[in-house]
């Protein structure tokens, strides 16, 4: 049973400034399913719409972002939640953080700068569960963060006193305090050094393995997906272009953009020259028609310029949206 089922989601930013109105079609027809007990990776470059997708899935849609089309259904055991038409109070009370929690990118700006870390823990737990005895609660939290490899005195510190890696671990501790079924991680380690990043990602993997929940990991770094994600979806200009288990994505991907993303990365030990993509990422205010990757695609066909390729299921949970594939299977 799918934990999350998204069908044909369209979410646009509509801005109106001094008479100039612009519509940015950030997410333009995305469908995906999240299964229990898996790490689902979403890869894509800047302005491909992955942050907007997260806003919709985590229910933080605020103007100028507006939902145009599509459905987002969660299934927490017997408890069904239609995210797009759900009473905000009940959402706040029984879904937020209990079922869906969130690990942010730059954790420096996410923690309240004028309150100690323990206060943020209290705010969250008190709202959802209530705290009887603050002393007991403090000890519980101290053991909990200790288990996650954080020194105990971190709870009394202020955010500005912690290093980047430490703050990110605090953010993970906060996100997992209620053992939610879905953790959405938005570029959790982009701002960190490579050694600290490894530690933080291992922590995320251990927590997922232990509580058998689902992690939606969003990052532009394909190498992180290779080592952390079970399944990976590649996003380009507001649409999914390919989705498959990690081994297939890295071993037998069919979409030119996916292949480029993987082979363009230099690797220590291999100095062979690597080509770069021509052109620039499309402007989502007026994206190219047909397949949005066609202006930069080396194997572009005539049909690619006019017709949007449908998502074709190649079996083994491998889906791809590219006319090259349809040509071959016919």
């Amino acid at each position: 049973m799918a934990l999350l089922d998204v069908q044909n989601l369209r979410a646009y930013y509509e801005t109106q400034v001094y008479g100039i109105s612009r519509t940015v079609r950030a997410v333009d027809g995305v469908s995906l399913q999240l299964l229990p007990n898996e790490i689902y990776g979403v890869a894509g470059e800047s302005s491909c719409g992955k942050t907007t997708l997260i806003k919709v899935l985590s229910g933080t849609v605020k103007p100028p972002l507006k939902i145009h089309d599509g459905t987002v259904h969660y299934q927490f055991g017997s408890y069904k939640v239609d995210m797009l038409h759900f009473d905000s109070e009940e959402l706040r009370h029984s879904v937020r953080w209990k079922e869906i929690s969130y690990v942010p990118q730059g954790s420096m700006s996410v923690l309240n700068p004028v309150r100690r870390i323990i206060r943020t823990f209290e705010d969250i737990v008190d709202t959802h569960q209530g705290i009887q005895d603050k002393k007991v609660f403090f000890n519980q939290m101290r053991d909990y963060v200790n288990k996650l490899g954080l020194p105990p005195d971190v709870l009394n510190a202020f955010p500005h006193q912690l290093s980047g890696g430490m703050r990110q671990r605090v953010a993970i501790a906060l996100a997992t305090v209620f053992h939610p079924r879905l953790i959405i991680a938005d570029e959790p380690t982009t701002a960190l050094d490579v050694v600290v990043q490894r530690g933080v990602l291992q922590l995320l993997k251990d927590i997922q393995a232990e509580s058998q929940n689902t992690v939606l990991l969003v990052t532009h770094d394909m190498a992180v997906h290779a080592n952390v994600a079970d399944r990976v979806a590649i996003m380009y200009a507001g649409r999914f272009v390919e989705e498959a288990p990690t081994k297939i994505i890295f071993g037998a991907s069919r979409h030119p953009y996916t292949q480029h993303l993987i082979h363009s990365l230099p690797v220590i030990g291999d100095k062979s020259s690597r080509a770069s993509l021509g052109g620039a990422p499309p402007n989502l205010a007026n994206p190219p028609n047909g397949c949005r990757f066609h202006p930069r695609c080396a194997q572009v066909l005539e049909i690619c310029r006019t017709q949007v390729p449908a998502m074709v299921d190649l079996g083994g949970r491998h889906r791809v949206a590219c006319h090259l594939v349809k040509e071959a299977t016919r």
Partner: protein
Amino acid sequence: MNANDKLLDVQHVTQIFHIGGLIGGSRLVAVNDVSFSLDRARPEIFTLAGESGSGKTTLAHLLLHDLDPMKGQVLFEGRDVSQIRKRKQVMEFMKKVQPVFQNPFETFNPLRRVEDYLYDTAIHFGRAKDHRTAAPIVDEVLRNVGLSLEEVSKRYPHELSGGQIQRMSVARALIPQPDLILADEPVSMVDASLRMAIVNLFRKLRDENKVSVVYITHDLATAYYISDRIAIMLRGNFVESGPVEAVLDRPLHPYTQLLKESLPSPNPSGLESWAKHIALGTTDVKEYGRVGCKFAGRCPRVMDICTKADPPDVQADGRTVKCYLYADGAK
């Protein structure tokens, strides 16, 4: 090899910062006794690699003469950079050394046309008398980086992609025909798909334009791809430096090994080694203050001598490594 055929010669440079109040406050040795040099005859790409707080950006400021070193000297073409005072000397220095910055969208003023900077550079460094005579020169450097004047003219930074702007930044740096380009994390903010274009560009500058590049980055993979020599920095020290194949294919210093291991490889097979748990890094400032090797707190092969005094620079297997493991007595 006398002094003046060295393009850049950094001799035992040390820089100490004072953090905290007027009196009191602690001392932070941002750069500690660093030396390296680039030959004028053989243009090369020299990488300064290290994580945040390793001192690589401070070193960059020292090379660009934004800062003058507390101890040691930075010689450019045999002359001490800190003596450069007068406007004419500064222009002379800037003609030969040009920077390329990290964030494409901060390199050019969002309220000015990007091309204006190229015209300014051409006119101020004497390559052209006025706007009209500068146009062909600007067009030539733009073609050199894979763009054309008509493609980017009259454009504001927000009307161009990160990749295009970064190329224009390189083009601007090329106009005064410099001998050395100092690139501070030039590709980290550029999309992966366009990153290789910029990286290949630096290679082309070295081979065709005979320009040496000091490449500052935390990304070992791109460093391996384009540089000739590399120096790994930790808390202000060169812990390992030498030809990039030696340093990255066969790393000796435990910190370099840890860096290489922590780099996730883009194929799923290498799972087990990456999953091994590593010690959590202590807060940066504490590591700066350590006596002896700065890595001792986290080093899997630490010996008690490591915490006593600074390890010596040892020549081993074609590179220099600052570690007691390879000091002749220790074998």
